[in-house]
């Protein structure tokens, strides 16, 4: 009884005090985590948005929607989208082959799918630019047909295919492993053709992971700089991509211009990230 009276007599602490206590009671692992995240991630993000905001709306719009900026978005996003679609098809096929079939060299292929993760991007750009140049191993096969690959948009696309392939394979593979073959067998037994089985039984549960992988690959391709800057000729309105434009603006000490285009890129990454999370939640619907 006396406890209850006492408790009601004690004044509740002010809000700032509650927060202060909460911070003071944090364990040191939390403190290191928050300190490092604040210094390394939040502060730079704030600096970037503050810089973009300080330029004013009209200036922001003028730079973000300038003809050269629009052309780099076009090159970056259209090329990334096309490569995501191509890798969506081939990446799914590769995942399927790795999960369902046995053939010599399978383990090596499985392990080497991760090479684009492990190989520094400048090395990727260097070797792709050599292989797909007019006198390179593969480029020389296309040169007589009048198709130039390196130092054009096609080359940028090749670099994007290279760096984004593992995302699709590695996202689809585990889902494919979980897929129960009984359902496919049931479909066969019920007289479905192979195409019907694929379209109506295999594809639906696989689709969220394929889309997630494509979105991850797309997001990576949009931000890619190292390999694309080397294989591209970086000609404005032709094969200049948005990250390279940011870099060029910085080299000209045009911090405002670099920041505004950077913020556009960052905004798109954030939207993609939210989209990917939604896709993953959609994919987990089948797991439960």
């Amino acid at each position, binding site marked *: 009884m006396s406890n209850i009276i006492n408790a009601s007599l004690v004044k509740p602490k002010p809000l700032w005090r509650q927060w202060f206590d909460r911070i003071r009671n944090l*364990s040191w*692992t*939390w403190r*290191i*985590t928050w300190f*490092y*995240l604040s210094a*390394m*991630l939040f502060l*730079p993000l704030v*600096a*970037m948005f503050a810089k973009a905001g300080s330029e004013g709306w009209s200036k922001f719009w003028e730079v973000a929607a300038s003809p050269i900026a629009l052309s780099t978005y076009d090159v970056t996003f259209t090329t990334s989208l096309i490569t995501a679609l191509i890798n969506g098809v081939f990446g799914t*096929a*590769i995942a*399927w*082959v790795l999960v*369902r079939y046995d053939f010599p060299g399978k383990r090596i*292929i499985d*392990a*080497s799918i991760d*090479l*684009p*993760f*492990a*190989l*520094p*991007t*400048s*090395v*990727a*750009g*260097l*070797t792709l*630019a*050599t*292989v797909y140049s007019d006198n390179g191993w593969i480029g020389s096969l296309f040169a007589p047909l009048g198709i130039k690959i390196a130092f054009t948009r096609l080359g940028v696309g090749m670099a994007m295919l290279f760096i984004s*392939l593992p995302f699709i394979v590695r996202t689809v593979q585990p889902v494919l492993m979980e897929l129960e073959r009984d359902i496919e*067998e049931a479909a*066969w*037994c019920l007289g479905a053709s*192979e195409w019907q089985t694929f379209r109506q039984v295999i594809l639906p549960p696989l689709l969220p992971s394929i889309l997630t992988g494509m979105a991850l690959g797309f997001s*990576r391709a*949009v*931000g*890619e*700089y*190292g390999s694309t*800057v*080397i294989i591209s000729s970086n000609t404005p309105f032709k094969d200049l991509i948005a*990250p*390279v434009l*940011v870099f060029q603006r*910085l080299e000209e000490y045009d*911090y405002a211009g*670099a920041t505004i285009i*950077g913020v556009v890129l*960052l905004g798109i*990454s*954030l939207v993609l*990230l939210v989209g990917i999370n939604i896709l993953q939640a959609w994919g987990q619907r089948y797991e439960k």
Partner: protein
Amino acid sequence: MKNSTSVDTLVHQGRDKKQSNWIPTVLIGLSIAYVSLIIYIPAVNVFHQAFHKGIEPFLSNFGEPAFLNAVKVTLLLALIVVPINTVFGLCAAWSIARHQFPGRTLLLSIIDLPLSISPVVAGLMIMLLYGNQGWFGTWFKAQGIDIVFALPGMILATAFVSMPFVVREVIPVLEEAGVDQEEAARTLGASDWQIFWRVTLPNIRWGLMYGVLLTNARAMGEFGAVSVVSGNVANVTQTLPLFVEEAYKDYNTEAAFSAAVLLALLAAVTLVLKEVLESKTRIKDQ
């Protein structure tokens, strides 16, 4: 028992009849062709270009001071950044895996942000903070400390892009290991440090090593972010990936490919170790 096997064989026979033989062959062929075009031929090309004139020019490039310095800077960066990010990764993974709190998923997504931010934008953010006109740049300049176009800026850029790997790999192994053993150790009177070194660390060691491996690969191989903040001064702030690009732009293709071979070998070692670590965790699962 016998009954079920015969049903099984029936089903399999039915499937064999339905599944024409050409589909697997075509799919395997197509996959190998695609992976060859995108990955294998370019990978083999690195070694071909570096060694097609024999091993002499390759070795002579190793004597170049700019090259040796690039190797030194690359190793130094990894040596500084990997431990920092490992400590942060362990702290963050421990805090997140051992607590349930609102916004947990959001925090995980935030930690993953550096992987989806373009490396050039990452470099730009460091320029905005520590560059000559940056928030802290003027203060550091007054103290006579160079951040951008010097090693500290490159450390910041590398640490930024390789931040999430340890956290991502350690959280699942921590969650799988559970708290039972740690609590048992605590009731037996072990201190926090003793619990960490004797109980937690042995449980998570493969996941931790996997995360460290990925951090190291990214730290040694990062190009975009480091390129923005380094100024790419030969003999001073040039890393191996930057050396590759610089040499290629200067039409010194041989030197570029000599350095590329080294980085490709790093990638190969990373992939082999990755396979080893994955098989270790798989054995533990079973």
